[in-house]
């Protein structure tokens, strides 16, 4: 059995596999890393680091993109 942890992604609690990377998280929510920007605990994680950045219990993740605006 795989351990899982709870993280907050875009304001909502989500269960992910313990030791999952941010890249894994993006895959889980079906997002192309090239189309989004990711913040982990209010620090930007650059694209090359997504794969090696591991999630921990209680982490706060924000995934943003560009939408229509003035």
């Amino acid at each position, binding site marked *: 059995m795989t351990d899982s942890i709870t993280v907050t992604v875009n304001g909502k609690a989500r269960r992910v596999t313990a030791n999952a990377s941010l890249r894994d998280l993006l895959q889980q929510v079906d997002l192309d890393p090239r189309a989004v920007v990711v913040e982990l605990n209010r620090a930007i994680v650059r694209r090359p680091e997504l794969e090696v950045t591991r999630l921990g219990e209680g982490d706060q993740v924000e995934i943003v993109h*560009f939408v229509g605006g*003035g």
Partner: protein
Amino acid sequence: MDNRAEGIGDEPLRIGERTFRSRLMVGTGKYRDNATMVRAIEASGAEVVTVAVRRVDLDRTKEEGVLHHLDPGRYFLLANTAGCYTADDAIRYARLAREAGFNEFIKLEVIGDEETLLPDVAGLLQAAKVLAGEGFKVMAYTNEDLVTALRLEDAGCAAIMPLASPIGSGLGLINPYTIRTIKRRIAAPVIVDAGVGTASDACLTMEQGVDGILMNTALAAARHPVAMATAMRHAVDAGRLAFLAGRMPTREIAVPSSPTSGMLD
């Protein structure tokens, strides 16, 4: 705009190290559908288009961001910090926007009042200093106040963006004098942002000598956004050309246009 035919040269708009063909910049918000937005932006002739930074809606992941509709190779994406009420929030959004990897420009908004969406000048100056120090090309949305504009320029802003009237109001150019004064005193490009409602507003604004206009709702909320975008393109060109042409002096009394001599007995 091509004014060379009549011998009036115009320089292209230059902000930071970048040169832009069109003096009309447009937003991408509030259109009834994406197809209309795309056609309106094309009709406007704009090169710079603004976008906002928001959370991806993870419950509807297949809903597309705006870049699924706009080719980032064709348009210059100007991210904004709309919706930010503190300098810290605006700085955070600006850094996220830059990380998207398109350019170092940011349309900086720090809002101070929900009803009028007028800027928080203290927060704006604070954020502008930090972001300019980090290498951002800051285009600062501000009120039509000369002293604030001067301080923003001192803070290192690449462009000053005074409002014509409040965001989304369509009230037009309320104070041509202050806009003219800002343009006269500021060396950085002055791009009037917000409040333009229809083509005559855009034309009148450009006649003040400013370097460009940014608009969104005037197009998105028009009954026919594509037609209005076309009208705005002509209005911005016409206003610019009229400014360069140099208007006649105004007089309080009539002066005949036809000869007063050679009249019949």
